[in-house]
């Protein structure tokens, strides 16, 4: 779990930042080039293998990045250990739930059985 603390957290924050920049640029290019975005086009794009991978990677990177940032902020401003642990736990649960939710959403559309 050292990944989530210390120098590796710093590194993960940067690595996910760069990944998010690339994924957003890629996503924006895919969405903005071509005909206007209708539900049919969005569904086809998002549930294509490439689209689904981009979306899942985006949310995973977003949650990892969000965790490091949120932890930094909580450590700076929340000093009482029980409160600090509670706030961190709530954030971790929410971020985990977001990843699970997105994975389930995409799996349902890709007809994957999880």
């Amino acid at each position, binding site marked *: 779990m050292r990944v989530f603390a210390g120098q590796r957290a710093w590194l993960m924050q940067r690595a996910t930042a760069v990944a998010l*920049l690339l994924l957003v640029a890629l996503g924006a290019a895919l969405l903005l080039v071509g005909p206007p975005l209708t539900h049919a086009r969005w569904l086809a794009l998002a549930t294509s293998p490439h689209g689904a991978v981009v979306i899942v990677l985006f949310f995973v990177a977003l949650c990892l990045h969000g965790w490091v940032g*949120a*932890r930094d*902020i909580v*450590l700076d401003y929340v000093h009482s250990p029980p409160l600090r642990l509670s706030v*961190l736990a709530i954030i971790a649960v929410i971020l985990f739930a977001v990843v699970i939710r*997105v994975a389930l*959403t995409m799996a349902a*559309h890709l007809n994957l059985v999880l």
Partner: protein
Amino acid sequence: MRGSGTPGKPFLLEVIMRSPTGGAPKFLNLFHIRFPIGAIASIGHRISGVLLLISLPLLALALERSLASEAAFESLRTAVATPWWGLLLLVVVWAAAQHVLAGVRHLLMDIGIGSPLAQARTSAWAVLLTAAIIALAAAIGWLT
């Protein structure tokens, strides 16, 4: 949290909870702290990050709704046109612009670009103004 670590391998929770500053002295009287432009850009990065974090569950929900059906997709579009959801979207647009621009500024500084004070102050102004302009453009686009 100072001194709570036992010798040897720290317990997982202690690693996660340990403050990076340890027992460093704190001086947090906001009326005595000056806020140069770099500090404002820095706090802007944090505030926008928190806003984006709060909107993250909504984004996951929006993804689910947008794929669910044509009607759900269209209902998202109509929701965005209403004042409150429009305002929320505008806040998210500002936060995303501010966070991405300030983040790129930090990444560039990591590799040694723009660290000298004069350049750092200029880029801090540029980040804050550009994010504000993007938010303004989004607001105008939303209204017209």
